[in-house]
């Protein structure tokens, strides 16, 4: 558990010297507790206190970077078991799996897809992260050729899958300086794999379906001087995966087993339920998910789920305040007020679109709070509405002076009328009822 400000304060010199940049030791302690300051800022801290404080700020799961350049990504460096405790920081890489036995055309086509395809959701660009290529052919040459074809097509992070160090060595000729993830070291080939990874400065996946053996492997690799490891639990069933990954995460986060403090690798193709494996991998701590090129439906669902789970639960995604158009609203179109919580926005937008009534959505800045909480916290108030009407020039967009407010904002109706001079109509509480409401109440 993170230390409280007061616990930290007790370790500080209490001189209030201001040398850390804060006015008092107590405020410095508050910043330390919130992770907004570094212990090194305090020049008078004893080494003992420093190590006590420092130990709680070092990430319990190592950050491992895969690939180089624009599309490279980091995984690990997570601090919590539940995302509600703080947030999850590094979304898993979604990696399309190919085999060197496939034709060059197939390989290049998939590579281009990963290179080019993206999904824009809530103002964010969501993408796949890289290519995994398996040495199915068994020959180092074919493997190297496939890797070369990929490299010619795109600068994407790679996962090189082969039991054979020679094959990997051949492939690394083409991509050795681009930090591909090598897969995988097992008890049988650990020494050679480590040497290879070390030589090229690559991250290395280690593989075993026994936790004890995996931990031992990790220790061995560490002893060889390798730090950038990724754990492959080689799960046989979905249940195995969930169980093992839960255990590893808990042991790592609590620092009970620091030797397991590495990101987790999941090959979804090994189950016959790939969609299920992907969904589980995303919610249950996988950091590198290798899968068959996804269908359009699964792509959208997987990218959306990943975006959902890796959103900071304490910082709701916000929309820009403004006047949004649904269809091509005319001067007599209804104006619907709501908050800038993205979920509220998209839900209402969706239902409004399906009503086919052209309308305006007036979005006000409630700092991302939902209607209910914004009303309760006073963030949604008449001044805000009045200013928004002015700022977004609503009076010139429509000829009427009627504003539909969310059902949960009904206590504010009088005050909004007073502040704006607009007639306020209280809409439904549930956005799903907006169609019915407009058809009956908006004439």
């Amino acid at each position: 558990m993170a230390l409280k400000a007061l616990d930290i304060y007790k370790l500080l010199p209490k001189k209030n010297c201001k040398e850390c940049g804060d006015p008092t030791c107590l405020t410095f302690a508050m910043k330390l507790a919130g992770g907004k300051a570094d212990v090194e800022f305090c020049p008078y801290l004893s080494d003992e206190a420093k190590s006590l404080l420092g130990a709680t700020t070092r990430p319990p799961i190592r950050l491992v970077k895969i690939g180089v350049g624009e599309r490279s990504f980091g995984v690990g460096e997570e601090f919590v078991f539940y995302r509600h405790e703080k947030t999850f920081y590094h979304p898993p890489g979604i990696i399309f799996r190919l085999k060197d036995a496939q034709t060059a055309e197939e390989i290049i086509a998939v590579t281009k897809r990963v290179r080019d395809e993206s999904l824009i959701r809530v103002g964010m660009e969501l993408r796949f992260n890289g290519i995994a290529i398996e040495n199915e052919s068994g020959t180092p040459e074919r493997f190297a050729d496939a890797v070369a074809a990929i490299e010619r097509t795109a600068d994407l992070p790679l996962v090189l899958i082969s039991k054979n160090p020679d094959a990997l060595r051949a492939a690394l000729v083409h991509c050795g300086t681009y930090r591909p993830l090598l897969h995988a070291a097992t008890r049988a080939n650990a020494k050679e794999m480590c040497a290879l990874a070390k030589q090229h400065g690559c991250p290395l996946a280690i593989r075993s379906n026994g936790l004890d053996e995996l931990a031992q492997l990790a220790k061995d690799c560490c002893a060889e001087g390798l730090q950038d490891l990724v754990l492959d639990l080689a799960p046989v069933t979905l249940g195995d995966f969930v169980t093992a990954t839960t255990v590893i995460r808990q042991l790592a986060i609590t620092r009970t087993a620091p030797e397991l403090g590495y990101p987790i690798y999941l090959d979804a193709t090994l189950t016959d339920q790939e969609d299920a494996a992907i969904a589980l991998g995303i919610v249950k701590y996988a950091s590198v998910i290798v899968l068959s090129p996804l269908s359009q439906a699964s792509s959208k669902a997987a990218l959306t789920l990943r975006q959902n789970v890796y959103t900071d639960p304490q910082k709701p995604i916000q929309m820009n305040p403004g006047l949004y158009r649904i269809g091509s609203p005319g001067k007599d179109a209804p104006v619907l007020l709501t908050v800038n919580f993205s979920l509220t926005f998209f839900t209402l937008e969706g239902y409004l679109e399906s009503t086919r009534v052209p309308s305006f959505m007036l979005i006000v800045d409630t700092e991302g709070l939902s209607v209910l909480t914004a009303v309760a916290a006073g963030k949604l108030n008449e001044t805000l509405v009045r200013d928004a009407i002015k700022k977004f020039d609503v009076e010139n967009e429509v000829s009427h002076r009627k504003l539909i407010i969310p059902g949960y904002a009904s206590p504010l109706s009088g005050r909004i009328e007073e502040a704006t001079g607009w007639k306020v109509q209280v809409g439904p509480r549930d956005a799903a009822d907006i169609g019915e409401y407009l058809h009956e109440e908006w004439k």
Partner: protein
Amino acid sequence: MPTVTFLPSYRKIDVERGCTILDAAQRAGLNVNVICGGQGKCGKCVMFVQAGKTSFDLQKYFRFFNEDEIRRGACLACVTSVDGDIQVTIPESSLIQEQKILITREDLPIEFRPSVRKFYVQLQPPSLADPSPDLSRLLWGIQKSGGPVAEKMYAPLEVLREIPGILRHSDWKVTGTIALVPGGYRLIDLQENDTAMRLYGAAVDLGSTTIVVYLWDLVTGKVVGIASNYNKQISCGEDILARVNFARKNGLAKLQALAVESINTALTSAADNAGIDREDIYEVVIAGNTVMTHMLLGIDPAYMIAEPYVPVVRRALSVAASRIGIACNQNCGLFAFPAVSDFIGGDIIADILACGMAEREEISLMIDIGTNFEVVLGNREWMFSCAGAAGPALEGGEVLFGMRANPGAIEKVTIDPTTLAPAYTTINSAKPRGITGSGLIDLLAEMLVAGIIDRTGRINTGIENDRVRKGDHFPEFVVVWERETAIGKDIVITENDIKNLIMSKASVHAACVTLMKEAGVTRHEIATIYFAGAFGNYLDKKNATIIGIIPEIGIDHVRNIGNGAVAGANMALINRSKRKTLDEIAYKIAYIELNAEPSFMEEYTSSAFLPHTDLTLFPAVQEELEATRNHGKE
């Protein structure tokens, strides 16, 4: 100049053409109700023009009036200007009513060590044998009479100029007034003959609603007079924000003058009652919130109310009282309490001083509730503070029949669990007109215990009782039937009122919990909870715990310190060493911005339940509720 005559009092005032009626009324000394600060928004300053010429845009404001009112000449005083001699009737509802104001006489077991002292000295006139200068002669004399060491005293130029004349005119028998100031001891006044027994000081609570003054005899260490009155700034806006907005529109000078005038009025009445001369007041100590203190000193408060919320000054200030117009001795010093932030001001530092939490090892929680609330948690080593908006519900605002502590306000309520009939007491035992904050809290607790509302505050409309009814907009509970009231209608509390109250109480409790979590302190570690401010004094501690305004620590450990601001000011006035600790206290307090605290909303939601979503935090309340429910079932 046109003359404005106000009816029914026939108060007259001459004003320039174009002056608003509101301005005229204020200049005529009438306390007009203006919540919006004179922007034509609140519709509270309704007046009726009986005769004469005015300019008023009726179209723009007609929504405030009905036809009958328009026929009778209704206007909003704040946006109506005087074009010639006029007669205006002010309905009583547009004037601020005199309210019950809290004045407590806390026993103050404080060592008496004022910072101003007087010394009567009889000096040897100079001679050729002893030609030392007048000043040295005087200071030596004071030192010999028990004053400070002569070398440490100095006289400002204005006093120096007076010295030769006064010494000789009084035949070398004079009284010197010495004040302890940061640089040493300052001779602030010199009077002929023995006036040493005439030395007074005033402690002032400069509240945004009321001003309270304690007048002390600084020779005997006794309180000689107490007075209080409304803060006249209220005519420029009811709340702080409205006043800062008023200040922004070139209104700072007016606000400054009104603050001084309010203090002077209170000082005068305290002095008159005590039969003393204001000229004998040599020191004034003022505890006020940060904005009020800025305004009193004529410092622009505008930058405090918008991000990044920066006050101009935080530390304690000493200035000459006469420079801002305080009516007392022209050499009187003024000491203003320091602040922590824009929201934690000198009034809160005074609360902390008054309850003594900054001197003890054990942990205290101090809560000052008004429209805004401030919470401080800590001990002599560390302190956390926060502030927030409680909403006006706890003071009777935003509640249909809520009212301030005026005569006729219901202040205590109990409900018979079987008949659901309330029993109540009102202020001055007048016929009920409304319900005060303390009455509302009683109601909430009693309704919960009687099962009229559930823990979210929703009224159980399934109850078969005349007092429980659906209401026009919300379900409601009849507290007093029409025939018993002074207002000719049923006094009710609606589900919406209850919701507002719960929101207010949830903010306060959530703030307490946020500080406790920041510090890692549980309710078991809190030795005492202090309530400061008028609200706390009338509050039923048990009911406050039942509805969960404060953490449950046992009502024996909850204390009301009453007006902590004035109590703290008193201490700082009569004991100079207390004053020295103030900056240190203010400095020690860490301020937590609730809006930036992600967990605050969470605490708020869990606090928006009676008493709380986590019932293990309120074991005694829970036990009692279960006992009464079970009893009801038998």
